[in-house]
Structure formats: structure tokens, C-alpha cells
């Protein structure tokens, strides 16, 4: 299980005997098949100009090398998501030898829709129908034969998870590539549209499209359906005059038929698929009279059922993750019942505790080894570089655990039900239930959270998600909050726990309210987004699949956030150790102090002493890099032993401390998150907006918090 290893494979295109692209709808088991075929021999990079990750894997068999490319999921052509656009454009460019289009017996009609969609236009395709373990072997064989006969495309039923028929699939892939196979054109009957399809084909046939790969009929149909990627592909190839001619044909079709062309196209495709299924014995698996409700469905139908289910799942998952990762709240519970020693042990032996110990040890060891070398060099190596690597590595278990929890929810089909259950509550704030995914993941780390906003319905919902996600307290912020709680309420674990709870409630509430602000006030949308979503069958998650999903999230985090955190840790080391006079160990002589003092005026309303203003300022600057950096900066510049005594050395009142913590929880996305916000929005305007937006909201909330607190406390 969970065999995760980062392997860099060098791919030399000249040595490759064939390039095979995998496409299919989401949930058909595309990634499972990809992993089974390539045995984790995988390279992850980005699709050019996007943050959508590109998975390439190598299969070496009998001295031959095949390169598999896992294309992002296609749901349909009108979703117009980035993922779909990437897949279509890859296929249109045509630098592959074979396309494997994947269907799924657990959702046959819908998954075949995507299969038809792809095979209609792209001819070098082999249909693979996954999850054949759900039906009897005779029916699946018969269905394969039927498809081959009626569509003219070879079809192979497999079970990726049970690894049934995979060897046969590989054998066929090799043979088809050697024979330079192209499938026949699929002939879906589009009724009244046929006349116009022929007219378009006539125009297109003047041009030299690669007819072994692309079907003109497929292009024509998708042109009539106004598919933007196909349209621009055609526009690039044909002359201006012919392009105008094509647009005219489409306009005439609309006028003469007086019907929505896409409606004709979509219903014809479905009619074609259903006709096919009804001719075969797989029909008895597809058309069931009743839907057997699972226990989860039954709970969700009860009033408050979904809320209770959701809270239960989230609570137990996070409890587990927190305990493993930070020792919280076990440490608090133990010290509450008087077992201080056990509490300390748990805290120090938590995963992140152990990791930070290891790096402390390493850095001390190197310092002692290099005592004869110049001080700045040793400092750069230990406090800059090693601390930077440590900051990245300390996050891996955490990100992995959160991804694991998420992967279990996703693979079992529970995640979609939670999205449905939360929709009503979320829609009051201008989100749809889909916000549940990024929100959940963001509790671990905001970086993958922002990336998950891709599941949003449209660009406006997506923008609202991206701008609201950074308010969700991530694990890095939890570490900061824990230290403040310990400093503030030392020996009072109950108050510590309450403060942490408050931080979570505040962050989640503000994130939701932010949805309202962005959607209603900034984007001026009157209605909340709607939800239409497939409910996949509930099943026990497969360890293999869960392992793959969670490892691929962790890798994405490493690639994106890791580099940024590492580089900036070094940068911060420089500005705190160099000043106008050169190298210095005095914080007050450094550039960092100068930068930090710009913050002092903003601390006026909180009656904070001018002398510690720059310290807090710089700590926040470091927190901008990575939130947990707030603590290490405080520790270094106050010259304290540990974060808790560093916080105490500032001699702040309880109200000031809670206010500063509140600000620290909300003020800006960390740099890693910010870089992903830029990559996802592709807009400096929105990226900048995100900083100013969060700063203003954080400042307002902090002012309110402080002035409320000083009524009750000192």
C-alpha cells in the first residue's frame, strides 16, 4: 500500500516507441488505470502556462518504451473548464500515437457520453471500459464486441483496481501502435442537422487536416455545437472567407430549424448510446428499477442529518490529524487531568515535534562542525538554508495526512454527498456546496485549497472561492495559535482549547462571509451559484487509490509551495542579518528592523509600545512568507529559547495578544498561497486585490476584537 516515491524519469522522446494519452470523465478510474499501467514510474510537471499538473508515466515492456499521458478529466464540452480545454487542445495538436478513451460500468451511459464525444473527433482511439468487475464476464465481452461492430472502434473491458485484463490491454496497445491503427468514424445520427454537417464537411475537406487522427465529421458537429476550442482550431486552419461561410451555415441551421442546436446534438448522442446499451445484456445492470439507499443517504434525508454527519466526519478526521501532527488536543487533555509529563512527551513526540527536533539537532551539529568558518557563512547555511528545508519538510506529514483524509472522502463517494448536504448553508453566503472541497483541504494547507477551486461552477464562483480560501486557518497558523495560547494561558489548558476553537470559528465564518462580500458586493451577482452534481456509488475506499491521490496532492504541494518557502527563508535570513552597515547580529541594525518599523503606526490603536513595533512588524513580514515563520522570527529577534518565551518577552496584555493573534490568523495569504492565487487567476490585479482585501478585513476584525476585549479585560 501507499508506495509513494518521487522518481524523476528522464523522458527522451526519440527512444519512445509510442505515446498514449488517457482521457475520460472524472470518477471513471482514469488515474487508477494510469498508475496500474505505469507502476508509479511517473513524472509530474505542469501543463504549459497553467497550474494543472501533467502526469507522464513510462511503461517498459520487452525492451520497448511507451509513454502514457494522463489528460485532465473531461466532463462534457460545455463546462468550459481549464481542464477540458487542456485535454482538447492536446488532442487537437495530435502529438500522440493512441488515445485511450475510458468508460465506466458503474455509470455507463454518462461515461459513454464522454467516450463518444472524444472518439467522434479523434480517430486514433481505443475504448476501454473500466470496472468490469461490477458485471459478469459474458456481458462485458459481448458489449466489447457490440461496440467494435457498431462503432468501428476497438473496445476492451477491464478492471483497473482488480487488474483484470490489463495484460491483454497492453498487448493490444502495442499491436495497434505498430499497425498505425485508426478507428472508423463514429456515425451518430443527428437527424435534421445532417444536411448542415455535410455542408461544413464540404468546406473543411479543402484543407489538409490530419485525416488519420481527426474526423471532419467530428469537427463539423462540434463546430455546430459552438465548442470554443474546436472553433478556434478550425479558424486557425481555414481561410477568412471559408470561416465566414462556416458561420453562415451555422446561422442558417439555427434559423431554419428554429431549435437549440446543442439540444439536438446532445439528445442524439444520448439516444445513440442508449440504443447501443439496450441491444446488449449490460442493460440489466444499467437500468435498475430502484436505487438502494446507503446508510449515508438515509442519514442525509433526516433533518439536520447532513450537518451532523459532516461535523462528525470533519471532527474525527481533524482530531486524528491534529493529534498525530501537533499532539493537540491530547496534550491539553493530559495536562488538564494533571498528567503534565505525558502531555510534554506527546507534544515533543508528535510528528512535527520530532521533525523540528531533528532539524534543530542538524543545525547545531553543523554549527559545531563549522565553528572555524566565518560567522555569516555558518549562519546562512544553518539558520537560512537548513531552516528553510526544515520548514518545507515539517509540512510534509501534515499535508499528507490532510490529503489522505480528503482522498478517503473523495474515493468513497462521501465527499460529493457532503457537498450536497452543505449546499443550502453555503448558498446563503454566495457559495455552492462545491466550496466544501477547497474549504476542507484548506484546513490543512491553503495551497491545494486554492487549486481545488477548479471544481467551481463558473469563473465567478471560482474567484469568490480563491479570494475567500486564505481566511481558513491552515495547520501553519494552528502552530502559531497554539504557541500564543500556551504563552497566554500557561497551565490553563481549557482556556487554551477555547482560544483555538475561537480561531477556527472566526476563520471559517469570515471565509463564508467573504463569499457574500465578493459575490454580492464585488461581483454584484444577485443569486447564489447552483449545484448539479453526480452522486457516485458509495463504496469502501481502495487503499491503492487513496494512496495515489494523497501522494499526488503532497507532491503538488512540494513542487509549488516548497520552492517558494525555501527561497524566502533564505531571503528573510539576509534581511535580518544584514543592514546598512553590512553583516550584523543585532536586529536593530538590520534591514529587517527598518522594514518592520513601517508597521509601528498601525499598532497605535492597540497601545503597543513603540520599541516592540518593529519586532511585531517583522514577524508579520516573515509570516507573509510562511505563517509558522512568525514564531521562528520572534524567537530569533527576541533572542529567546523557544516561541512561548519569545511571546512572553514582548510583555503584551492579554487583549493585545489575542488581537495580534487574530490579525496574524487573517492578514494575508502566505506567499506560497499567493503564488498559486496568481497562477490560478492569471491576474496581478486580483492577486494584489487579495492582499489588500485580506489586510483590510483583518485590520477591521482586529480593531473590533481589541476594543471588545478591553471592555472585559485589561
Amino acid at each position, binding site marked *: 500500500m501507499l508506495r509513494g516515491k518521487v522518481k524523476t524519469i528522464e523522458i527522451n522522446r526519440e527512444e519512445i516507441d509510442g505515446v498514449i494519452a488517457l482521457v475520460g470523465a472524472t470518477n471513471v478510474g482514469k488515474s487508477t488505470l494510469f498508475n496500474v499501467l505505469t507502476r508509479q514510474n511517473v513524472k509530474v510537471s505542469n501543463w504549459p502556462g497553467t497550474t494543472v499538473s501533467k502526469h507522464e508515466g513510462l511503461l517498459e515492456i520487452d525492451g520497448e518504451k511507451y509513454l502514457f499521458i494522463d489528460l485532465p478529466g473531461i*466532463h*462534457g*464540452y*460545455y*463546462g*468550459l473548464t481549464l481542464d477540458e480545454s487542456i485535454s482538447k487542445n492536446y488532442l487537437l495538436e495530435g502529438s500522440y500515437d493512441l488515445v485511450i478513451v475510458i468508460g465506466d460500468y458503474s*455509470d*455507463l*451511459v*454518462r461515461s459513454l*457520453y464522454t467516450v463518444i464525444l472524444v472518439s467522434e473527433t479523434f480517430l486514433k482511439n481505443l475504448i476501454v471500459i473500466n470496472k468490469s468487475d461490477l458485471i459478469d464476464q459474458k456481458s462485458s465481452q459481448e458489449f466489447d464486441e457490440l461496440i467494435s461492430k457498431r462503432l468501428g472502434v476497438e473496445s476492451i473491458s477491464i478492471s483497473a483496481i482488480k487488474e483484470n485484463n490489463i495484460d491483454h490491454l497492453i498487448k493490444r496497445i502495442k499491436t495497434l501502435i505498430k499497425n498505425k491503427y485508426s478507428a472508423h468514424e463514429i456515425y451518430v445520427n443527428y437527424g435534421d442537422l445532417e444536411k448542415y454537417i455535410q455542408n461544413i464537411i464540404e468546406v473543411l475537406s479543402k484543407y489538409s487536416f490530419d485525416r488519420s487522427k481527426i474526423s471532419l465529421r467530428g469537427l463539423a458537429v462540434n463546430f455546430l455545437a459552438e465548442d470554443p476550442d474546436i472553433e478556434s482550431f478550425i479558424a486557425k486552419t481555414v481561410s477568412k472567407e471559408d470561416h465566414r461561410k462556416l458561420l453562415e451555415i451555422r446561422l442558417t441551421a439555427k434559423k431554419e430549424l428554429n431549435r*437549440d442546436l*446543442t*439540444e439536438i446534438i*446532445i*439528445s442524439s448522442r*444520448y439516444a445513440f448510446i*442508449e440504443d447501443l446499451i439496450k441491444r446488449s445484456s449490460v442493460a440489466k445492470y*444499467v*437500468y*435498475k428499477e430502484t*436505487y438502494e*439507499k446507503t446508510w449515508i*443517504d438515509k442519514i*442525509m*434525508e433526516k433533518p439536520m*442529518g*447532513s450537518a451532523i454527519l459532516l461535523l462528525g466526519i470533519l471532527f474525527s478526521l481533524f482530531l486524528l490529524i491534529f493529534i498525530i501532527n501537533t499532539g493537540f488536543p491530547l496534550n491539553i487533555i493530559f495536562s488538564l487531568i494533571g498528567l503534565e509529563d505525558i502531555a510534554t512527551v506527546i507534544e515533543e513526540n508528535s510528528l512535527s515535534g520530532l521533525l523540528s527536533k531533528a532539524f534543530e539537532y542538524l543545525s547545531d551539529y553543523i554549527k559545531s562542525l563549522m565553528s572555524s568558518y566565518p560567522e555569516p557563512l555558518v549562519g546562512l547555511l544553518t539558520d537560512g538554508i537548513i531552516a528553510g528545508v526544515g520548514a518545507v519538510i515539517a509540512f510534509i506529514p501534515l499535508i499528507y495526512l490532510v490529503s489522505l483524509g480528503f482522498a478517503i472522502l473523495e474515493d468513497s463517494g462521501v465527499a*460529493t454527498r457532503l457537498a*450536497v*448536504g452543505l*449546499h*443550502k448553508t453555503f*448558498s446563503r453566503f454566495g457559495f*455552492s*456546496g462545491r466550496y466544501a472541497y477547497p474549504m476542507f483541504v484548506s484546513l490543512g494547507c491553503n495551497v491545494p485549497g486554492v487549486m481545488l477551486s477548479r471544481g467551481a461552477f*463558473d469563473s465567478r464562483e471560482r474567484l469568490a472561492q480563491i479570494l475567500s480560501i486564505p481566511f481558513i486557518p491552515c495547520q501553519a497558523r494552528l502552530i502559531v495559535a497554539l504557541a500564543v495560547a500556551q504563552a497566554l494561558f500557561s497551565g490553563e489548558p481549557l482556556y487554551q482549547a477555547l482560544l483555538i476553537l475561537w480561531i477556527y470559528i472566526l476563520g471559517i465564518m469570515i471565509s463564508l462571509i467573504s463569499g457574500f462580500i465578493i459575490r454580492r458586493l464585488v461581483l454584484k451577482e444577485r*443569486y*447564489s451559484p*447552483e*449545484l*448539479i*452534481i*453526480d*452522486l457516485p456509488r458509495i463504496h469502501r475506499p481502495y487503499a491503492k487509490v487513496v494512496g495515489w491521490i494523497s501522494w499526488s496532492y503532497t507532491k503538488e504541494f512540494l513542487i509549488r509551495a516548497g520552492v517558494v518557502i525555501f527561497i524566502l527563508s533564505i531571503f528573510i535570513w539576509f534581511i535580518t542579518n544584514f543592514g546598512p552597515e553590512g553583516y550584523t547580529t543585532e536586529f536593530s541594525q538590520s534591514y529587517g528592523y527598518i522594514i518592520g518599523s513601517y508597521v509601528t503606526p498601525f499598532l497605535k490603536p492597540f497601545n503597543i509600545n513603540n520599541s516592540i513595533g518593529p519586532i511585531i512588524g517583522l514577524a508579520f513580514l516573515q509570516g507573509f512568507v510562511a505563517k509558522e515563520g512568525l514564531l521562528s522570527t520572534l524567537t530569533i529577534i527576541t533572542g529567546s529559547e523557544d516561541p512561548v518565551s519569545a511571546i512572553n518577552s514582548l510583555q503584551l496584555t492579554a487583549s493585545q495578544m489575542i488581537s495580534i493573534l487574530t490579525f496574524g490568523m487573517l492578514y494575508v495569504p502566505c506567499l506560497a498561497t499567493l503564488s498559486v492565487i496568481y497562477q490560478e487567476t492569471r491576474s496581478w490585479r486580483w492577486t494584489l486585490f487579495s492582499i489588500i482585501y485580506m489586510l483590510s478585513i483583518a485590520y477591521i476584525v482586529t480593531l473590533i476584537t481589541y476594543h471588545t476585549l478591553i471592555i472585559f479585560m485589561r
Partner: protein
Amino acid sequence: MMTQLTLDMGEIGRRYNVVGINAGRGLTEKIMEMGIVPGTEIKIISRFGGHVIVMVRGSVIALSRGISRKILISPLE
């Protein structure tokens, strides 16, 4: 004339025929690609929290109230 109603008003356990979709451009296509096209048989299997859960062509789909109001159906049988 056949009685027409919107999907959110349908009864649990009953079968209906999809008659039309009155959503805007983009959303209409999305609904249709999910398999809900005029002429399709649809069965309502559950309803909670403003959602309608339907079975269409062997798939189970959840629709929020706003969307289900845009889908016109008429009872079968």
C-alpha cells in the same frame, strides 16, 4: 393538455418525462450534458434540504432547488 410542473414539485418515487429546460445559456447545456434532455424519463428518488435527487439513465444526480425549478416535467403513466 398534459399537466406540466417543475422538477422541485414532483413526487418522490414517481416517474416523469422531461419537457423543457428554462435555464440560461451555459447552464442549460450543462444540465443536458448530465443526461437531462427533453424527452428523457426521470425518476425522483429523494428530496432533502432543498435538493432533488433524481435517477436519469441509470445515474443518480443531485440538483439544487434553483436548478430543479428550471426543469419542466410532466408525469408518466
